């Protein structure tokens, strides 16, 4: 049984679940606590112990079927069974080679702004005209911009010097008065602290956005890595949550994972349907005072009425709704596409999203929110 549980854990890990030795021990204890002869009970018990999120449930069912077969525990079928005990134990710890070639990683480190003016020129340049070297150069700047974001007043308090409207810090007053013979001579005060406000970034990755999607996804990645309470989504014809995929420090790996997760990269656009899903499935992440930023050119093949309704709903549940449109950088830009016409009345801010300067503007606006 130990070997079986080991391979179950291995399959789970291979799919991305976090199963450690602690969970394995728990699994043993759980099996000991129930009637093991019932296959169904064993499955439920293991599921309760080894899963820790809803996404884990599906992985578990796959892994359980792979390891314990479809009801007949004969043990063939799992490719892992062919491995010896030692290989199996070693399996999850085998390092997975990174997708980026070492050469590229080296090259990245080499790119250094030769002069400040390089960066200055880069600021206004359209993302669509970036060379690869410029993209690498911009990465650092984007990471810096991504650290800036909206804050909100928290109900947690922190000690402050006296200012009007703050509450007395009785804890410290009592402590201090012990030193003055029980007389509360020194007053202390507390005021609400500030915490990061949740941000939801929704990036259009359809065909028309291809020149910009790469840089904007970099911004998404940098935001997820730099700030807490950031959710990232990508959409073309349907919406995909890519927060987990974009996590982690390794930039290429993260973007690769995100691209793999998004089924409809460079395809058509149905913004309304994507926002509908955001409102329904992820409504709880959007509510509670989040700032929602939609990054899209507004070329919509879907139903404009749907887009209009969903934008209205989104604006009502979000704290602020910002739309970044790379086309808006053009001096003659007017929101005339069907999609933009439906969306613009419901946005708090419409910004360009085509250059570092426009991302800087976004960062500034987020900070002021």
């Amino acid at each position, binding site marked *: 049984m130990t070997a079986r549980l080991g391979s179950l854990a291995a399959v789970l890990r291979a799919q991305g679940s*976090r199963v450690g030795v602690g969970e394995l021990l728990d699994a043993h204890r759980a099996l000991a606590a129930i009637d093991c002869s019932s296959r169904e009970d064993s499955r439920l018990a293991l599921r309760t112990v080894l899963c820790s999120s809803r996404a884990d449930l599906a992985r578990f069912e796959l892994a359980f079927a792979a390891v314990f077969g479809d009801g007949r525990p004969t043990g063939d079928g799992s490719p892992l069974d062919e491995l010896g005990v030692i290989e199996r134990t070693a399996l999850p710890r085998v390092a997975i080679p990174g997708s980026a070639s070492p050469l590229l990683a080296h090259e990245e480190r080499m790119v250094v702004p030769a002069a400040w003016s390089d960066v200055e020129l880069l600021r206004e340049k359209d993302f669509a005209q970036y060379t690869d070297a410029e993209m690498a150069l911009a990465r650092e700047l984007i990471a810096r911009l991504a650290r800036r974001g909206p804050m909100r007043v928290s109900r*947690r308090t922190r000690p402050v010097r006296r200012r009007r409207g703050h509450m007395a810090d009785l804890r410290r007053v009592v402590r201090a008065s012990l030193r003055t013979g029980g007389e509360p001579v020194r007053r202390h005060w507390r005021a609400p602290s500030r915490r990061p406000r949740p941000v939801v970034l929704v990036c259009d990755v359809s065909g028309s956005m291809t020149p910009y999607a790469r840089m904007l996804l970099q911004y998404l990645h940098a935001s997820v890595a730099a700030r807490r309470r950031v959710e990232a989504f990508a959409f073309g014809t349907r919406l995909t949550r890519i927060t987990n995929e974009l996590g982690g420090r390794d930039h290429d790996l993260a973007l690769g994972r995100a691209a793999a997760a998004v089924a409809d990269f460079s395809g058509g656009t149905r913004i309304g349907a994507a926002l509908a899903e955001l409102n329904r499935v992820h409504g709880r992440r959007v509510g509670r005072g989040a700032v929602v930023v939609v990054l899209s050119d507004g070329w919509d093949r879907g139903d404009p009425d749907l887009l209009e309704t969903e934008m209205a709903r989104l604006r009502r549940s979000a704290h602020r709704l910002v739309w970044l449109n790379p086309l808006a950088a053009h001096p003659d830009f007017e929101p005339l596409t069907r999609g933009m016409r439906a969306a613009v009345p419901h946005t708090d801010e419409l910004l360009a999203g085509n250059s570092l300067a426009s991302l800087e503007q976004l960062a500034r606006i987020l900070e002021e929110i």
Partner: protein
Amino acid sequence: MTFTQLRSVEAASTALATDGYLADRPLALAVHLAVVLEQPLLLEGEAGVGKTEVARALAACTGARLIRLQCHEGIDLHHAVYDWDYARQLLALRAAEHGVDEGELFSRRFLLRRPLLDALEHDGAVVLLIDEVDRADDEFEAFLLEFLSDFAVTIPELGTVTARHRPVVILTSNRTRELHDALKRRCLYHWIDYPAPEREREIVHARIPGMPEAIARRVVAAVGRLREHGDLYKLPGVGETLVWANALLALGDEGDLDETLGAALKVHEDVLRVRERKVLEGV
């Protein structure tokens, strides 16, 4: 083990049912394991599927005391574990003529006990419900992680308080944000789904004695239609089913599903959409 009623999965299921909570087998098993393994149980699920009710029913059927910690934004140690009664301390300081000894000032007399300390010090079985843990912030989650592994807290002025009886802990989360991995890994996990129609009818009967079968059937069918519709912002949970059934029962013969739609749907657009597309036609 104090919770002897829950020695097997069937027993857990029966025990919960005595208090009107009809748990399906996976949930009964999760509760059974939480008790036997003495591990916290994290319950997730859509709003209104009865996450909080599990703890209530568990406490009621085992005779344990239910201690509830409702998490909220900004909750910290002093809301959750203990605080000092500063106002009384200041009064005591002023009243004493020759000054007060620090040890006396920070003694049990001036200690305000909050739910977690209560749970540790209660003499007897405790079901500790940590409700909506996703509303608390990361710092508090980190503290919970420590609390749930040691079942002990240290009050600097008084020393360490350790649990007399390890409480059965139920955490609920609404998934407004992802909980920290470490906390999740400390817990058993169960996702509560919407119940199947027959099960939901049984729940209606168990929770509202004297409910006519016709109304129960109608309401459950209607709620099922709404959940299937898939185009609504907020789907009705079991809680809404019960309210709706109660509303129809109260209205008697005049009860109409469409007129009482507000019992189940709380978003204006949803109500409009359901009426416009005649989702409830024929129920």
